[in-house]
């Protein structure tokens, strides 16, 4: 009789067990939002500066470790440039000059290892501009822009972006934009400004940013014409 009672109570016990399990799993995962967890770049833009700083600091610690243990010169160069870029992002978020200096150190290190490394010239241009050294900035931006062939899609026979990856492309694009503004303001040269802006447009992929840049540069050019 006792066994029969146990067997009869089984469905109820299992129903309760499954319900408890379902509630437990739900409560453990309820804060998860499927569309709330966006992936790399999209999520990056929406993070708060503190969160950005924390994740970047972690990235730097890891990269420095990787740099210390890396023997390959080419990889060392890539890592140094990446650390330089990350330090610059922290500087942009925090406005702390110490991060800018660190960024400069790593960018120079990267260029010493490989003078053609992408991004480093652009970052040094940004650093120079933040120090109000516009002539040095122009020099760096020019080097960055001239390294990149604007006619290419970023395709190489070995695959997409092996040599001209999106980051390099973006660096060249922003360098051209900076130059267009600098040649429109600090070092006025209409022809150069027009040429650099056209080069920027050929690389621009974001329609909203393109629209905004066109409006801004036209504002400068209209002021100069007046």
């Amino acid at each position, binding site marked *: 009789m006792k*066994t029969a009672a146990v067997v009869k109570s089984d469905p109820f*016990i*299992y129903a309760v*067990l*499954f319900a408890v*399990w379902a509630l437990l*799993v739900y409560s453990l*995962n309820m804060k998860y939002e499927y569309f709330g967890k966006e992936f*790399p770049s999209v999520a990056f833009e929406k993070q708060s500066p503190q969160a950005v700083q924390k994740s970047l600091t972690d990235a730097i610690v890891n990269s420095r470790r990787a740099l210390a243990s890396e023997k390959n010169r080419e990889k060392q160069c890539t890592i140094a440039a990446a650390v330089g870029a990350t330090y610059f992002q922290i500087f942009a978020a925090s406005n702390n000059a110490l991060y800018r200096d660190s960024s400069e150190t790593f960018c120079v290190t990267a260029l010493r290892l490989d003078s053609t490394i992408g991004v480093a010239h652009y970052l040094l241009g940004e650093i120079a501009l933040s120090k109000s050294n516009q002539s040095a900035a122009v020099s760096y931006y020019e080097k960055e822009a001239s390294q990149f062939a604007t006619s290419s899609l970023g395709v190489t026979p070995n695959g997409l972006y092996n040599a001209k990856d999106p980051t390099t492309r973006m660096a060249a694009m922003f360098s051209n934009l900076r130059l267009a503004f600098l040649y429109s303001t600090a070092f006025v040269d209409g022809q150069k400004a027009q040429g650099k802006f056209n080069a920027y447009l050929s690389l621009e992929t*974001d329609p909203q940013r393109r629209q905004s840049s066109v409006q801004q540069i036209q504002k400068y050019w209209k002021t100069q014409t007046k």
Partner: protein
Amino acid sequence: MNKTKAASKPETAAKKPLFLAVSQSAWVKFFICLQLLLLAVQFTPDLSTNGDDARYYLLGKSLHDGQGYRQIQHPSKPIENIYPMVFPIMLAIVHFISSSIMLAKIAQGILGALVTLLAFYLFKVYSKSLILPMIALCATCATLSQFGASLMSEIPYLFFSLLALLLYEKSIADPKKAWLFWLTIFISIFPMHCRSVGLAFSVSWVLATFISKKYRYMFAHIAVLAVSVFIYHKLTTWDNSYVVLILQRNTYNPELGLATPAELVTRVFQNIQEYSTHIIQRSLIPFEGPPALIVLTSISCVALIFVGWLRSMFGPMKVLSLYTCVYFGILLMWQTQWSSERFVAGIIPFLYFFLLQGVETLLTLAFGKREKSLKETLTALIATNREAPLSSKGIVWALTVLLCLSNIVFQINFSKTLKSLGPDWKNFYSCADWMRNNTPKSTVVMNRKVELFYVRSQRQGVMYPYSHDVNNVMKVIDTSGVDYVVFDNFYWTSTTRQYLYPAIEAFPNRFQMVYALNNPPTAIYKVVKQ
């Protein structure tokens, strides 16, 4: 009342505590709790990167939304012809409560635990001594947990096949109940409509009922199955795509054409080698170790399963043996790149049972009571379904504990990798996020994983054709009204590089890059309309 008491006496005696004074029922509850715990450890609230689960989820959503059995992720919303209907219908029912993926996955987890419970009630009919070790193995099985934690049709398939077999045994024991008979027949067609490999279930059902002269079960099954297939055909214009998939040399390169009979034979042998030396081990006893040990374990498993299978074949469990045999027959025809644990998952409880029965048979032969000759011993063993001597039970349990530990450790390690996406997937999803944030809802995107991309981006999509002809790819882009293409960099497939990339390269003026990510290089190109 007295009669009831008298009838319950032998049952009570049979259900006396096995060891440690704990009843069989309590042990089953313990194993179910353990299984639920392992499922909770592996649980992730979103879809896996498999792609099939997203497809099932969307088919369920389509049914729930009243759009019919259609591929809502495709711009023309065609009727689904390949994926069977049972699992999407179950998901559609869950959709009535909530469209949350998490809820569907919780329901799937519970179904996984119910599979263990059903296995207990079914195999209790066949063997008393092996039932608890078998349930312990089912509850801790890493492969079953993997599918219990994802929206795949393996677990529902197993659920319905076990339920049909259990009902069959109940119906045979109580043939006067007409409702039980028709319920059995109704459920017996579910495996076929849950997974295409369920054809094995129906074939073995017909064979087993024919051999055991249960003709009404055979004819009723054939009739109900024929009606259901006819209705399904009318509803979905079911085509022969599945047969073509089996006959193709390589589905990911259809230009290679269909396999010749000689190639099909070679494929069968390649699959036998793959299943017997690796996949069976990974499915039943997953562990990392030296290749030689893995091969040895896998072959030993297959040998023991074969012994157990033979004993069942000539004993009272013909239907199980026939089913496993026909099931593997279909698996061996499958293209070799698809051979994996996934296809074994549908019969894992049967394989564990045969494995344990194989061990028990060998132990009984070695240490049990002997007849005058080996032939008589074997006959007695099969005819009476004689149990192993008590001392041998310890060995069976020791082996069970070892296998359970292997599965538990593997699951805990696997759960860590399950919860983190690889960089290729992160970039792919980032592209989906970009599409959702920057494009209108009517946008059509060509990409490698249309279903997953649709769930995340809410943008319909098409797959590029597996064709080396760039004009053919461009034709699909133009005729399908594709607005964007996603150049992914999945490490597990090179189809985008093989088929989509040459078209981008050949027509640079037709593609304008709008979003790009590095590590690994991934990009969205806007299609310039002509």
